[in-house]
C-alpha cells in the first residue's frame, strides 16, 4: 500500500505520498504569500516553494482583513504569483534531491506577535527551520499527530520532521476532540507535539490508554507537572519532553522536566543578563530587521533561574506579552482596538491566570456613560474585535469601571 502523507479528517482529505508528488508536479504557479485554510494546500505550497527556491510569506488563515492591512499587505500582493518549473517526482529520494538542490535560495517569512502593536516579520531559512530535525532508520516509521497551527513555526518544524522522514501526518489541530482517541489508535500515532492547553483540552476525551505513542512533546507555556502525570497515564509508553522555542529562533532547548540544560556545543550562544533574562546569540535566530538585537544578543523577555551550572528553569516573562494557551498577545494592540469603539474613553488590557490556558485576556473599560449604555458598548466592542483580531486576543471578560488605576508617571499599571 502507498504510504500515507496526510490524514485531515475535518476536511475529509486523505493523501498518500504518491498523491503529494503528483500534486507537486501539477502545480503551475505559486502565490508569493501563502494564505490558505487547508493544511494540505499549505504543505503543498510550502514544499513547492522550496523546490523552486522562491521567497514566500506565510499568513495565519484567521488573520482578519484589518490585521492583514496593518501588516502592509494589499489584496494585489495576496494574488501575486510566480510560474514554477516543470518537475518530475517518482519517489521520495527524488523529492529530497529536489529540496536539497534549492534550499540555499529559499526563504520564508513568518509573523510573530510584536511588542509595538503589530506582528513582526521574521525570515527563516531551510537550515534554521530544520536545525533540530532528526532523520534516519529510527525515525522512518513514526506517525505524527499534528496539533499546531500549520502556519506557525512549531507546526512548520513538526512538518519538516515528518516530511524528511517520509512519515504520515494525522492532522488533529481542529478536528472534533471526540474523534482524537480513535484517530490516534487507528493510525498508530507514535509522536505528538502540542501546547499544554491542547493536551488539557483533549485529555478528558481519552478514556483508554494509547500504547502506540512513544514521544509526547509540549512547550510554549509554563511547565505543569500535573499535566506531565496525566499524560504519562494515557500514554504509558511515551517519553515526555518539554521544549523551549520561539518564532525568532525555533526550538532552542529540550528537557524531560522542568529544568533545561543548555547543551555543551551551544553554550556560547546562551547568556543570562544581570536581571535574569535569557539572551540568545543572533547566530541562532531567523533574520529580521524587526528583532531587537543588542551587541549580537537577542533579549528573549524570558526570566530564568540558574539551578546549577548550565541547568536553568523558566520563571516568568519580562515583557508585557501575555501567553494565552501558547499564543502571545500584545495588550497594547488589544487596547488600541477597543479604544476605536465610539463611546470608549479608555481601556486597560491585562491577564487573568487560570489552569486551562495559562491566561485569559481581561479588559477594564471606561465609557461615556451619559451617552452610551454598557450593554450597547459591550456589543460594539465584541463585534469590532471579532472582525479585527484573532480569537485568542479578544478579552473574555469586560469590566466597566469609572477610571483606570494610573501610576504617577501617568502610565497604566500592568499587574
Amino acid at each position, binding site marked *: 500500500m502507498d504510504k500515507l502523507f496526510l490524514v485531515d479528517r475535518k476536511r475529509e482529505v486523505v493523501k498518500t505520498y504518491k498523491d503529494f508528488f503528483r500534486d507537486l508536479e501539477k502545480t503551475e504557479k505559486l502565490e508569493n504569500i501563502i494564505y490558505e485554510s487547508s493544511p494540505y494546500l499549505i504543505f503543498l505550497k510550502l514544499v513547492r516553494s522550496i523546490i523552486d527556491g522562491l521567497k514566500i510569506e506565510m499568513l495565519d488563515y484567521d488573520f482578519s482583513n484589518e490585521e492583514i492591512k496593518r501588516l502592509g499587505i494589499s489584496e494585489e500582493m495576496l494574488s501575486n504569483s510566480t510560474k514554477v518549473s516543470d518537475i518530475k517526482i517518482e519517489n521520495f529520494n527524488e523529492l529530497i534531491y529536489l529540496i536539497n538542490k534549492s534550499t540555499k535560495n529559499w526563504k520564508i517569512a513568518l509573523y510573530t506577535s510584536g511588542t509595538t502593536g503589530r506582528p513582526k516579520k521574521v525570515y527563516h531559512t531551510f537550515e534554521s527551520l530544520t536545525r533540530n530535525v532528526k532523520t534516519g532508520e529510527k525515525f522512518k516509521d513514526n506517525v505524527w499527530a499534528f496539533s499546531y497551527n500549520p502556519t506557525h513555526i512549531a507546526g512548520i518544524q513538526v512538518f519538516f520532521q515528518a516530511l524528511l522522514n517520509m512519515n504520515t501526518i494525522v492532522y488533529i489541530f481542529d478536528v472534533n476532540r471526540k474523534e482524537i482517541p480513535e484517530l490516534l489508535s487507528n493510525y498508530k500515532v507514535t509522536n505528538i507535539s502540542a501546547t499544554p492547553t491542547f493536551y488539557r*483540552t483533549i485529555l478528558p476525551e481519552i478514556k483508554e490508554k494509547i500504547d502506540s505513542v512513544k514521544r509526547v512533546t509540549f512547550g510554549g507555556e509554563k511547565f505543569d507537572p500535573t499535566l506531565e502525570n496525566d499524560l504519562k497515564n494515557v500514554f504509558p509508553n511515551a517519553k515526555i519532553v518539554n521544549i523551549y522555542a520561539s518564532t525568532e529562533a525555533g526550538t532552542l532547548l529540550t528537557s524531560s522536566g522542568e529544568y533545561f540544560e543548555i547543551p555543551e556545543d551551544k553554550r556560547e550562544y546562551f547568556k543570562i543578563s544581570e536581571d535574569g533574562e535569557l539572551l540568545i546569540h543572533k547566530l541562532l535566530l531567523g533574520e529580521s530587521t524587526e528583532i531587537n538585537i543588542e551587541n549580537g544578543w537577542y533579549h528573549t523577555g524570558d526570566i530564568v533561574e540558574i539551578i546549577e551550572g548550565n541547568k536553568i528553569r523558566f520563571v516568568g516573562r519580562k515583557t508585557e506579552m501575555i501567553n494565552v494557551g501558547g499564543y502571545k498577545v500584545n495588550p497594547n494592540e488589544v487596547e488600541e482596538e477597543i479604544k476605536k469603539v465610539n463611546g470608549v474613553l479608555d481601556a486597560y488590557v491585562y491577564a487573568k491566570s487560570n489552569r486551562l490556558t495559562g491566561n485569559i485576556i481581561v479588559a477594564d473599560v471606561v465609557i461615556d456613560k451619559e451617552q452610551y449604555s454598557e450593554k450597547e458598548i459591550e456589543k460594539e466592542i465584541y463585534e469590532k474585535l471579532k472582525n479585527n483580531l484573532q480569537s485568542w486576543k479578544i478579552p473574555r471578560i469586560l469590566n466597566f469601571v469609572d477610571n483606570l488605576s494610573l501610576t504617577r508617571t501617568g502610565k497604566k499599571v500592568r499587574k
Partner: protein
Amino acid sequence: MSKEKVVLEAINKILEKKGKNPLSELDTNISLRNDLEFDSLDLAELTVRIENETGIDIFEKGIIDKISEVLERLGENG
C-alpha cells in the same frame, strides 16, 4: 448568590457571546465540552468567572467536564 446561580450566570454569559440560547436551568448531566461545545478559551473564561464570584478554582484538582462535577468542587470548598 447560590453556587447554582453563579454557575448558571457564568455559563449563560459565555453562551450569549457565542450567539447561543441561554440555559433556563442547570441540568447537572450537561457536559461543558460535548453539550455546550465549550472550547478551551470558553472553559478558561468559565473558571475565571466562577473564581471571581466564589474564590474557588474549579480546575484546581484537575480538569472536569460535567456540571455536577463543577457543583461538587464548589460544594467541597463552600
